[in-house]
């Protein structure tokens, strides 16, 4: 029942590891396969879990996670509460740009059980990126996968000179009017 830490293992060469957390298995698999299908210059390892904490067994087999992606199905309250519970098992250092929330199904307002504003607030309080995605459209999943790959590449330190923390602070400062 240990918390997940970003820096307690050695990184792999030219590879990034990603953890997908979410209650909907189909969503996780859809996203993971879309990410694996994309052409990329580095190796990506995707692990999936329904919720955190991860079981203690097999801990030694897991890579160092460069990024944790929480999938929130907006059509289910359970999905949100699971994510909320899981967040507590994550080390603080992850929130320096290595966490991303993906809200799924926000377009069909009729079926939404979770308010979009709630998710926005969640992402804001955790200083993390929030993506919206529709998983019933193949195109959108592919586009989301592409975005996540770009992000994980930076989180894994594969882009020289840029770190996840830098991106986060850039996002926050981008809307201030003073020039760089």
């Amino acid at each position, binding site marked *: 029942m240990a918390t997940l830490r970003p820096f307690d293992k050695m990184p792999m060469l030219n590879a990034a590891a990603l953890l997908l957390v979410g209650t909907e298995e189909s969503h996780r698999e859809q996203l993971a396969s879309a990410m694996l299908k994309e052409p990329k210059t580095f190796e990506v390892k995707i692990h999936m879990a329904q919720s955190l904490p991860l079981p203690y067994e097999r801990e030694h087999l897991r890579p160092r996670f460069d990024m944790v992606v929480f999938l929130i199905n907006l059509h289910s309250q359970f999905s949100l509460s699971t994510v909320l519970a899981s967040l507590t098992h994550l080390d603080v250092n992850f929130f320096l740009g290595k966490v991303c929330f993906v809200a799924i199904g*926000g377009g069909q307002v009729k079926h939404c059980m979770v308010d979009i504003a709630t998710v926005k607030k969640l992402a804001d309080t955790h200083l993390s990126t929030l993506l919206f995605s*529709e998983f019933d459209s193949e195109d959108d999943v592919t586009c989301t996968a592409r975005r996540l790959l770009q992000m994980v590449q930076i989180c894994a330190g594969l882009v020289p000179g840029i770190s996840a923390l830098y991106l986060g602070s850039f996002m926050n400062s981008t809307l201030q009017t003073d*020039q760089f």
Partner: protein
Amino acid sequence: MEQKQPRRSQHRESMRNQDANIQQMEEALLFLKNVKGKVILKENHTLINHIFAVENFGLKHGIPPDAINVLLNLVLSGNLADSLNARLLKCLIPASEVTQSSIIQAVSLFCAGKCSANTQIMFLRWLITVFDYITCKDILSSFYNFFFCFLNYDNLCPYLCHLLYLLTKKDHVRPFRVRKLMELQNKKGLQPHLLGLLSIYKIFCPELVSLTLPSRFKSYFKSSHFLWRMELREIAKRNAGNPAGDCRIILGEKEQILSHSRKRKWNSNPLPPVHSSIWGKGPVLADNLVSNEQTFPIERLQTFPQLLDNIHRLELPAQMGSVLKSPLLLHYVNCIKDDTPFLRLNYWLAFTLHEECAWYKGNKRSKEEIEAFLETVANMQQFLQEGLYSTEGFLYKSLPHWNGSHQSHILDLISWIPMSPSSEMEELLYKPLAQLFISSSVYFKCSILESLKALLHNWLVWHSVSVERIHTQSTNMNGTMSGLLTSVKDLIHFIGRLSTLGLQIHNSNLLLHFVLDIYELVSDMYVKFSLPLVVLPPPGVFYPALLSTDCVNLNQLCYIMYRYRTNLVTAKTNERQIKAQMHLNIHSHTFQEFNKYLTAMVGCLWTSQAFHQDTHPQGIHLETHLLESSGVSTYKKAFNIVYHPALIGYSVHFYHQVFSKDKLFRLQSIKGRLWNKYLDFLYSQGLNGLKLFIESSVNRLASNSQQQEPCDLLLSKS
């Protein structure tokens, strides 16, 4: 022969039957015509027999126009019992058409209220059903107000709404009617039929109806309003002898478009073809309308002269969507002073974009359809040279959900967003776009920057047009001017930040090329667009471009710096000459910054002093001991146009041209007179930006002296 016999007799039989039917019908009509005063149904066998005859005939052959007249009069006079009235109306299927006089009589009887409410309802349903067989709808539409007054009667209301829905033309939409409908709506709650009527009002005059209509209403009117459909169609077919001449097509189409299923509308055709209005399409009516002098049928509008000749007689189609693809109509919408067509177009577009193109809504539209439509909209805006607020609203709603699908089309739309205050733009455009920019590939980043450049360009063009207007009208618009300046400035700063980040992440010459493309536009704002604003590129753009390994980018940077210089010098001289004509917003900080950049650039290209002279806090200044530790012994002379990474290819090429192969390869020997020859060589290779820059910013005291000193622009605001 034996087989033919029975058939012939059968035929004769049926003919005889028909004759008998006609005779019975005639007798019945004669009888019914003479009915005056109340008739009792009980035990009145003659009456019942005659009614039977009419029913028989009506359902088989349809009722001829004059008979319709008689029967309607009878029914609405209230002389018969309700049940008989209903039976008569139910069989009152017009054989060919319904004449004007019968409508006038019937409606006046209806208004007189002699018959019971049930009969009135039946009559309305009958009107709705035979709507397309009424020859002169203008007559019916002149009764509009009468029908409207009856809306107060609860039981008539749904049917009246349906009828009015079919009748409404643009002239009918008046504030008092809207008020009345809203009042009814408030009293009775959300009634589909009232919403239906309001929706068509809103389509015609969106500015009058402030109510937001529920976006997905399946159908406003019940199909049970129709008395008969199949029978009518059958009889129309039989009488016309031509199955294709189905008059109901007209009604069917209107429903399809407006009330019934929005899905079907899309599937059939997102952009309806141009029709002057639903009125002009009926086969019975076509001739009538063409001869009508008041409106010019839009279908016949083919050429620009035609548009000019008939501009006062055009009535826009009920479906604004058809305007999108017609340049002539767009001209018309654009130039007439009346705002309503524009409002209608915007309303329709906002609705359609939201309903059909919001891909994230889970609409099962095919990608091609959406993209084709978005492309049409983008082309339309390109044609109008203006972004519509409906597309703007659509973009703002969908940008947070945008992950890059329909990439080029959405970016096209973004480049036409109208200018608005920065605070709004930040929240609605910059924030989602920046998020997307961070997590996108280098090619996507290039497209985003390209679209932002187009956006800036459009803003600048709008500004220059409005400046002309200010000059001609000599109105004081200082307030809007300053708002505009901040908007433009913020956009440029936003672009600057995105570019800085993009170049940090990707270090790509392609991306740099796109970035410099933007700054080529930015550098010329003062001279080209007379915008009193000069914004320099951030160091995150300037230095990568200066030290770029690609000579195209370096050349472009030189050109940009040359344009900045021209702009600043012009601004300075203008400021001296015409005081306070246009308040100059260029801060002295800008001049200082420009001079710093210039020093760095001249140091880099000419004097080899870049690492010493650069005074910019984020520049490339290096301490002497660091330079010494690099191991380059002649570091004081080792970074100029000869050694610059982007130009070293040229210098080597030049060296081989000038010196024979067996001479020891020493680039240092390019100096003195050779330096000038080398410069000419560079210019001959098409590096015009470099030429312009060096000729303008480097003051060469003597053409053959070895050491030339740069001449900084001594421009600083006191």
